[in-house]
């Protein structure tokens, strides 16, 4: 509770901090080390205040009691990072345009269908970048059925993404002015994505640690700058399940600082920039989740219990 030694009420006891770290790990895969204590205090302070809870410690105690789904969601959303911008990092989209897409268009010439997934889509910039990139190549995809699914753990950012409304700052980060003029409509000092592109993307809330097999099979999955927040067991688990959702000749695009090496043999990193990883043919696949779990001396994430947090 807030007091003379902690007037802002931002401190947590070691037990409360461990409790918060366990909650975040089980609910979202986020690894919260002691070095991130300041981040938890900065981001959860406003959550405590908005709920009239006197201190961060009291908020964590409330969370540990379970049953308050809104609070659990608010804490998770406050602790997840939603940094994103249009055509982020450039290279992944260049590789998609020059290498991945031409191969897939040739391979799918008969069925004329392509599916993309922007996993951890945040406020939608990545999914809309894909939609614009594909729209610019519409002459190659005439009469094709092209789907873009975009998901995120946070319902707040998914709702923002569905709106498709961006600030002047957001539309200037990574988005060429010609694409802004072509695909957005100005509304005061904000810009809204055109309805045709908005309708091409299906946004939904989804936790990557839960079963996502119902989403179906994809040709390309963008899952960038998410796995860096997970421990190795969670990374291996998500990668293994992603491999089952990606077509045998499909691709996974990871963030620049992310790798599959040592986590799964289901993907082969493609040389060059852009984080492109291709599926490895089934016969050589050797899941390493069990080995990773053994190394960590605990069961795979999919069977870790989370009693008290649901």
């Amino acid at each position, binding site marked *: 509770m807030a007091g003379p030694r902690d007037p802002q009420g931002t401190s947590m006891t070691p037990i409360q901090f461990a409790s918060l770290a366990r909650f975040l790990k089980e609910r979202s895969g986020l690894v919260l080390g002691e070095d991130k204590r300041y981040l938890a205090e900065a981001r959860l302070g406003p959550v405590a205040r908005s709920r009239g809870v006197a201190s961060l410690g009291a908020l964590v105690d409330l969370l540990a009691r379970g049953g308050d789904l809104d609070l659990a969601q608010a804490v998770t959303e406050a602790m997840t990072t939603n940094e994103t*911008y249009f055509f982020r990092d*450039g290279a992944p989209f260049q590789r998609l345009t020059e290498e991945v897409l031409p191969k897939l268009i040739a391979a799918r010439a008969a069925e004329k269908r392509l599916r993309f997934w922007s996993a951890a889509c945040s406020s939608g910039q990545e999914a809309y970048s894909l939609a614009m990139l594909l729209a610019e190549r519409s002459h190659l995809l005439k009469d094709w059925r092209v789907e873009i699914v975009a998901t995120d753990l946070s319902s707040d950012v998914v709702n923002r993404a569905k709106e498709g409304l961006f600030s*002047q*700052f957001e539309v*200037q*980060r990574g988005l060429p002015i010609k694409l802004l*003029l072509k695909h957005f409509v100005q509304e005061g000092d904000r810009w809204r994505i055109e309805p045709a592109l908005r309708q091409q993307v299906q946004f939904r809330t989804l936790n990557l640690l839960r079963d996502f097999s119902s989403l179906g099979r994809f040709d390309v999955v963008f899952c960038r700058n998410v796995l860096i927040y997970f421990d190795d067991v969670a990374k291996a688990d998500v990668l293994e399940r992603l491999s089952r959702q990606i077509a045998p000749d499909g691709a996974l695009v990871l963030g620049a600082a992310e790798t599959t090496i040592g986590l799964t043999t289901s993907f082969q990193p493609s040389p060059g920039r852009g984080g492109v990883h291709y599926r490895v043919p089934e016969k050589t696949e050797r899941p390493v989740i069990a080995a990773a779990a053994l190394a960590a001396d605990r069961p795979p994430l999919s069977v870790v219990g989370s009693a008290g947090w649901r």
Partner: protein
Amino acid sequence: MKHCLVVDDSSVIRKVARRILESHEMRISEAENGQSALALCKQAMPDGILLDWNMPVMDGFDFLSELRSLPGGDMPKVVFCTTENDVAHITRAMRAGADEYVMKPFDSEIIASKFAEVGLL
């Protein structure tokens, strides 16, 4: 080292832009209006120009039209940087030969993003 000309009647904006672009290892020249900028371009054509729209003596739009008619004037990448943030102004600038467009206020990420877009970073 790429050479960029920053054209703006505000010394504050020129200073901020200089700092951002120098952090990306660009060499910077400054001009406070279109006429001074044109004189500098006639001496040595820069690789890039960060260009304000509303300036005394000669505005950015007139400068761009003059620049593009000079020998070698089609070479510099021109990034407008202005408070004129409506579609009509942006469209007019692009038709006149601008390569990119920054809507003020800006930050270092936006400037870097736009200069990367035109191949200067």
